[in-house]
């Protein structure tokens, strides 16, 4: 899976991103879009690098293939689940599948006006997402309690920070976070 993901990421890096605007933030004045990568060659390159018949299925938009970075993120979180499961088998630390599912649910709730975050897994097994843009740094962490916490630090001279904890994440909560999350959109 790792080699396939690397091969695919390499491919994506060579594609021209197509920025789209859609979703919950369309009325909020936030002006940054999730990047989609459009190509007609994904299936062919993926198969040849992986060295076997491709099982990859991508959604189709018009005449080209479109791969949403969100799918890659979900795949990485799923891989983290495997790491946590193996770790649990090795040292007996509890493994909670519900945490993986909860994080995937959170990813799917991220409004499309917000850049796709990167995943992280702490040594203690805590799952998180982070954004590092020109304008701000932010991380969203799934705490052991099953609730989320969000930290945002602006990169202007004042380095203003926002920290919210004990968040029960829902789409409406994300909408209410439109203003702080909007800081992630580069001017």
């Amino acid at each position: 899976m790792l080699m396939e993901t690397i091969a695919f990421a390499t491919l994506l890096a060579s594609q021209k991103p197509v920025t789209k605007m859609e979703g919950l933030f369309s009325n909020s004045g936030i002006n940054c879009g999730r990047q989609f990568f459009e190509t007609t060659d994904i299936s062919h390159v993926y198969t040849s690098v992986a060295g076997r018949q491709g099982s990859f299925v991508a959604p189709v938009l018009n005449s080209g293939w479109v791969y949403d970075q969100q799918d890659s993120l979900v795949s990485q979180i799923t891989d983290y689940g495997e790491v946590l499961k193996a770790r649990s088998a090795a040292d007996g630390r509890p493994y909670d599948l519900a945490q993986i599912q909860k994080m995937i649910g959170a990813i799917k709730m991220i409004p499309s006006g917000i850049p796709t975050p990167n995943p992280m897994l702490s040594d203690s097994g805590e799952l998180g997402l982070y954004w590092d843009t020109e304008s701000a740094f932010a991380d969203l962490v799934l705490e052991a309690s099953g609730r989320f916490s969000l930290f945002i630090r602006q990169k202007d001279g004042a380095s203003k920070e926002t920290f919210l904890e004990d968040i029960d994440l829902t789409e409406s909560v994300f909408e209410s976070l439109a203003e702080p999350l909007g800081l992630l959109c580069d001017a």
Partner: protein
Amino acid sequence: MHSETVAQNPCRTFFQLHELNQDKVKALNEQEDRLNWESLSASSHSPGIVDSGEVLCRILFDPIHFDPLTSTLKPSAFDDICNKGLSVNRVKHRGIAESLAAGAAQAETASRLRTPRSLYGHLVALASELRSVAREGQRCLAIYDTAIPENPSHADVCMVVPDRAAFRSARAQLHDKYKSQLVPA
């Protein structure tokens, strides 16, 4: 080598007591004098307290610290500041090549006993830079000379503000400062 006895040195007493505690930073933050303890040696194996001019080496592993897909440092590379202490080696007491060799061996052991892990490389930081990380005018990090017999250069970087918001701020500041200073092995 320092001559303080355990009775005179609460810092050493604390770190001996919590040597295996994976959450010792939490206990550290219950100690009123924790910042002053930087001027006391934390281990009888230490060559001395960590001077602010010292260069420290942090070994980085994939997948926890480094993202091979984006070739970037993850903020989680610094998570240990709030639980067991962020392990660093003092370069004047252990060269970077030796630290990397030890890191490779550590990754191999972890992969065999727990989950796959590989050595990525390292970054270096000045002790004074780490000590200057602050939030709302309050210093966030302290460095203790937690030497062990097999590694006298070992030190721990620990949060000294018991606050989740401060931890996230310190982690973000460290990530921003060192993300472009990765050195692959």
